[in-house]
């Protein structure tokens, strides 16, 4: 994609009201301070890529957004509801927030189709036929409708991750979280998953994505957040961060990432 076309598309893409708010979030694992005063506001339809060295707290932060991890200080507000121990409110929020994991986490005892229809049927109370129709439409969108009646163990890693994306989308979430979605994949399968994510980004989905794929960040991110040692060090549009890093930590990180590629 040319620079001008990219700029045009990004200009056309309008960002709405804040939908995720992290306010001075703190978290400890025992003595280890893994999130330090993390504050971040993400708007509706915004696409945020979070990067940083391993152990920087980026996965922990994204997992706090749907409370797979509990934060111990500060506030997290998602879609107008603050995350607390109220499980009913929590399940409501979780059904609005799709998540894609590094290790896919498909349900191995269910077929691809059943993986996709499970939550719509049981959480959304959708009739089975309707849920299956919905699931097939998303499986077509991630380009694997022909695998619908297989089991996850019969699919390649890239296919499984695309199913995981389709499964999350079947809940028609307002936000999608990606926790290193391509890190467990063989190199030749990374592209098919990234292409699916790019297509999703272009449809206007609010996305928060932890990834090392800098090409992906450049292409779709409205904003890149760089984390290190549990805090947000820098954030801004991708070209600004990648071409003019303001801190030594980001410079070091970028040089390591680029050397790796």
């Amino acid at each position, binding site marked *: 994609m040319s620079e001008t076309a990219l700029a045009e598309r990004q200009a056309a893409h309008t960002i709405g009201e804040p939908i995720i708010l992290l306010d001075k979030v703190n978290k400890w694992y025992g003595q280890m301070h893994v999130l330090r005063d993390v504050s971040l506001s993400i708007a509706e339809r915004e696409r945020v890529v979070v990067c940083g060295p391993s152990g920087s707290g980026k996965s922990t932060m994204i997992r706090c957004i749907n409370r797979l991890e509990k934060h111990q200080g500060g506030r997290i507000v998602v879609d107008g509801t603050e995350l607390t121990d109220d499980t009913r409110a929590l399940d409501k929020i*979780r059904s609005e927030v799709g998540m894609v994991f590094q290790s896919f*986490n498909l349900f191995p005892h269910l077929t691809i189709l059943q993986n996709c229809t499970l939550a719509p049927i*049981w959480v959304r109370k959708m009739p089975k036929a309707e849920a299956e129709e919905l699931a097939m439409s998303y499986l077509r969108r991630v380009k694997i409708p022909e695998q619908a009646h297989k089991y996850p163990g019969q699919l390649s890693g890239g296919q499984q991750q695309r199913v995981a994306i389709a499964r999350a989308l079947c809940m028609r979430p307002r936000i999608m979280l990606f926790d290193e979605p391509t890190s467990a994949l063989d190199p030749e399968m990374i592209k098919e998953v990234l292409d699916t994510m790019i297509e999703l980004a272009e449809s206007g989905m609010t996305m928060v994505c932890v990834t090392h794929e800098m090409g992906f960040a450049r292409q779709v991110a409205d904003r890149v957040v760089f984390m290190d040692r549990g805090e947000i060090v820098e954030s801004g549009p991708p070209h600004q961060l990648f071409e003019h890093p303001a801190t030594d930590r980001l410079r070091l990180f970028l040089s390591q990432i680029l050397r790796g590629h």
Partner: protein
Amino acid sequence: MSATALRPARAFDPVGWARANLFNAWWSSALTLVLIYAIVRALWGFIRWGFVHAVYSVPTGANGVPQTGVCQAAGVGACWAVIPEKIRFILFAFYPFDQQWRPALCCALFVALYAISANRFFWRRELALIWVGTLVVVGILMWGGVFGLPYVPQYKWGGLPLTLILATLGLAAAFPLAVLVALGRRAANLPAVRLLCVIYVEIIRGAPLIAWLFMATVMFPLFMPEGVDIDKILAAQVAIILFAAAYLAEVVRAGLQSLPRGQSEAADALGLGYWRKMRLIILPQALRLVIPPLVNTFIGFFKDTSLVLIVGIFDLLKAGTTAVADPPWQGQANEVYLFLAVIYFAFCFAMSKYSKGLEREFDRSRRH
């Protein structure tokens, strides 16, 4: 097609197999010969005792007492006459003789219930109704007192139907309890529930089943107010349920523990909520993983129900031992024990075969 499937199938060659596995060295050949000799001797001894020199029937004396003298003669093997003579007592104990079709029907109902439950076609909500219905019918048949059936008090129950009641009701009630206890022990957010479950499992496991049976049937009634009469069979049944549940809970917990955390997280992330997550995602996978130890525990408890004889309940084993206490048959304990072993074996082997089939079926449906 995989490479292994292309390998040409070779006809089985017994001589070659024996040479490669049984006679591949001098010590191997020697060991094989010694073992063959031992096996043949033992087998021949059993055949001589059980068939060649066996007595199949004895004459009845003028007073109606069987003349078992022929069984006591030197060189005589098994006296199988004891089985037809005592079979009704072994199977039904003191249940009124002319009413014994009722416990017999109960046994048939139980076997039918197992067969239906084993068929995955019937694994649906209605199965629970079938279970409740069957247990109600068994209750009506055993107790009677309605539909023109004479009332038979519990202390007259015994034999095979009692063993099946104790085992079936025991495991059917213990299993759901075990799942709850296992889940409770892993409930990270409910420390009180967790502690309670740990205490329950540790205390129950800490004493032998016999001790619990004594406590339930002898000690527990002492603590009850005057006039409250606790039935011995009911007390033993409760003890078996609580005991089995503690063991099964640990088996189920092992299954829960062996699932990767990602499964639980993925279910959470979809907003399924705790109970649906457990029912639809976690338990189906965890229980499949522990089918072998689960069935192992089931088989163990099926046989352990025979411990109730210690508190004077006439289960199958107790009925058998009582049958050979009858003076004319006092020498024939071996025959009766063998007969009992065959009955126990039939049920246990069926369970074992079924679990094998179930494992295979689940393996196939996952096709990893």
